[in-house]
């Protein structure tokens, strides 16, 4: 093994392990310069311990941590939980809206008449309840901005519920 081969192998490694092959060891034993190069690699392998543990001055760290406290206290910028809940609620509201407007007509078209009648009779209590709720909100819906206001209220309701579930979930993970 030549010095050039030895150093090329040393420089091309992707590991910090200073272990040399028997052939490399033999070469390093007979060449002072290569032994010194291997010694340098040994020393670099324990570089993390050279400086001990560096630390920021207490004042600098306190400044960042105070900012962290404020950020989590006021929830700004919006935390991931808020974002996730908003997106989930929006998706759920869209799916619910689509179900209310599209599903009845679609089912009536797709299902055979006898099956449709059975489904209607099975869902009768639920439909009655839905109708009574819809009648309650009918005066509001007929007003200007009534429908958007109802949609917003529905979104906020689902958002609050989703956020509560997620916060409770995070709390359980924390404890």
């Amino acid at each position: 093994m030549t010095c050039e081969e030895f150093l090329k192998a040393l420089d091309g490694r992707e590991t910090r392990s200073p272990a040399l092959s028997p052939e490399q060891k033999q070469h390093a034993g007979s060449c002072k310069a290569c032994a010194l190069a291997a010694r340098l690699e040994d020393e670099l392998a324990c570089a993390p311990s050279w400086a001990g543990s560096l630390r920021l001055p207490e004042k600098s760290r306190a400044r960042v941590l105070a900012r962290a406290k404020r950020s989590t206290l006021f929830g700004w910028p919006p935390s991931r939980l808020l974002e996730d809940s908003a997106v989930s609620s929006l998706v759920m509201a869209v799916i619910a809206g689509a179900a209310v407007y599209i599903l009845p007509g679609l089912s009536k078209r797709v299902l055979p008449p006898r099956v449709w009648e059975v489904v209607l009779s099975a869902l009768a209590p639920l439909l009655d309840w839905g109708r009574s709720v819809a009648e309650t909100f009918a005066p509001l819906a007929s007003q200007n901005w009534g429908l958007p206001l109802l949609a917003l209220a529905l979104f906020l309701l689902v958002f609050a519920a989703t956020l509560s579930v997620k916060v409770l979930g995070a709390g359980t993970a924390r404890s």
Partner: protein
Amino acid sequence: MESLPDERRWVARFQAGDSAAFEKIMRHYEPYVLGLLWRMTGDRARAEDLCQETFLRVLRGLHRFRGESGLKTWIFRIAQNAAADLFRGADPQAEPLGDETGLPTASGPPGPAESLEREQLRARVERAMASLPALPKAVLHLFYWDELTVAEISSVLGLPEGTVKTHLFRGRRALRESALGLSPGGAP
């Protein structure tokens, strides 16, 4: 460098509004980030300023962190960008900004003669590191001092792995030549 144990859980806790989780993350990574920045700037005070700026950026971004990359590489990338922002306006010939030769070296437990020889070698390495160009210096520091893999360094610096390997190869060679006075062929 060890990754913070349970780091996903700490991130989730911070995202759920627990500021103590951020302190845990910061205290774990602070020495490594400060070491890298000190290496890049050659100036302790400037490195501390950049380290503070790095963690403020981490704080702003951690709400949105989804763990696609490791937390360690993500934080180092922010530190690297903070250092790059500093150098962007500076004359590249003027690097390093400070006049310090590098990180302090602590003496180990071996006997006085061996310890002295080791300290001399470490001091020479630190001087040689200070004289390297920015990129090989960053690659060598992340590889040896922060114990990152080639893939992790590639992610931190935004370079292909092949380029990182090339910088590692050439950096080692330049470091050896500068610290030990050995030529590429091995002759002193």
